[in-house]
């Protein structure tokens, strides 16, 4: 996947991220992201034969919790407060702009 990031790649990434960018932004980010990607080109030169893939940046594993229902222990959080902070509600539902079709997964 080497090679510079062109403007169409930036526009596509912006669309997927729901960002609206000006033309000036697009050209600026194309240059900046190309530079970022070039660092990976440098990294690719390292010989990784025989090295285990790194699956997580911190070397821990098996952090689990027991299957016991528990009230939220986060300071000040209540679901009603969260609902009250929503931009729009319909009864106890979050109300969002109309979505058509079905979700799938």
């Amino acid at each position, binding site marked *: 996947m080497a090679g510079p990031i062109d403007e169409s790649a930036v526009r596509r990434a912006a669309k*997927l991220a*729901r960002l609206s960018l000006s033309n000036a932004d697009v050209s600026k980010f194309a240059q900046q992201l190309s530079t970022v990607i070039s660092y990976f080109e440098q990294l690719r030169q390292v010989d990784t034969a025989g090295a285990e893939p790194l*699956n*997580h*940046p*911190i070397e*821990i*594993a*098996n*952090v*689990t*919790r*027991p*299957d*016991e*229902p*528990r009230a*939220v222990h*986060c300071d000040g*959080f209540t*679901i009603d407060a*969260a*609902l009250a902070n929503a931009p*729009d509600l*319909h*009864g*106890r*539902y*979050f*109300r*969002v*702009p*109309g*979505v*058509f*079709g*079905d*979700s*799938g*997964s």
Partner: protein
Amino acid sequence: MNARRVFKGMPRIANLEIQPIIGLEIHVQLATRTKMFCACAAEFGAEPNTRACPVCLGLPGALPVVNAQAIELAIRAGAALNCSIARLTKWDRKSYYYPDLPKNYQISQFDLPIAERGWFEFSREGETRRVRIRRAHLEEDAGKNVHDFPGFTAVDLNRAGTPLLEIVTEPDIHCAEDAREFAIALQREIAYLGIGEANMQKGQMRFEPNINLEIRDGEQLAKTPIVEVKNLNSFRSLHGAIEFEIRRQLEEWQERGVTGARGNKSNRGWDDVRMVTVAQREKEEADDYRYFPDPDLPPVTPDARRVAEIVGTMPEPSGVRTARFIREYQIPAKDAPALVDDRATADLLDAAAALGVDRATLARQFLSFWQMQANARQISIAGLRLPAGVFAELAQMSSSGRINATAAATIAGELVRRSDTAAVKAGEPLSVSSLAAELGLLQTRDSDQIAGWVDAAFAANAKAVQDALANPKKLIAARGFLAGQVMKASGGKADPKIAGELIEQKLRALAGDAARS
């Protein structure tokens, strides 16, 4: 499943061999009390947005933590699907922009699923068929979008984060009936092993078949484009959607010659009323999930010892148990479900058998009068709440000839009645043999006593005995008749084997006397 079969039920088309190629994706909701990555209760039917926390809402800084029970149930499922369990499994973000997942990604498993490369068998028309399993991975369910309102969508996040196991088969299925039978067998096994409740009405199990056709015309092979039918929540709709797609794809190929190329897979929905699949609106761009490892969640490394422990303590899968019951209890295959399907009853049968009684007798009693007692109360045999020892003792008395079959059924009825009494509830043990004695149902093996009944039967029927001795053709009937008289005189208590022997001895003695005189 490897043999190529010509699909039947299709309009006959000269020289064409049509082979449907079907794979299934199955989502199973796991039987946990809480969600996959937070401690919110996983409940069906609660008020909207009452089971949601910062993790469910995708609030910044919220930290997901893996539910240990979901891992355990997934390993159990992996074992039931004959998969290898990963030594290292990790979590990935699947980008997905939709309001039912406020994080804008779903936590799933991309390249290192918890289980892979297995198989699952089902039987159809007495034949065992095997479908290979490609993988099974853990993920979280989305919330619910309600589209019933004009101009807006209402979002309930109670379901968001519910643990799901997605099972993916290889495309080893070749007709709608096999897909349905496979799905039914899988649903039963999931429920049997306590992996998930697998209640179809509650949407706890959903199917997504991938379907296309291979059409062979002599040397030519054409393939129709693959269609995935989304979110089927009944066996009927799974069967109907596949049947419909097979016909639709064949027609489309005949009329327009459409064949598949890499990447032109499409999604269709199912209309349960019209029984047709319908094209879903194509997105402007193909899905771009941009999977990448979730930095919030460290990997899980189930060690071999823990996996062996989970597999060792899980219930015996119903498929394995069925085969064993047919073999060990000498029952016909058609009777197996009555003993296997209710896990507590199957466990009870095994527990009683382990006490060292004749298994065939025990199974026969389960299938006859015990089943009748349970049915009369609309419960399972285990629901009768009698200890395993009672079932074993009754079978033992029956197979050793201490009671006859009718007496066994009578005693069973009495045992069930008495199990409800205060004394028994207070802990007084139920003794089958003392109950049999109390009811006067024990068979006697006292030869002198039986000889008395035999002599009386001969005396009362002297004429018939004489006729039988004179005419050997009548001898067999006379033996049976005399045995009946003995049983009647003894009130059914005479051991039939001993009575038979005594009758035979007496007939021989009389025949000898007649010959000498």
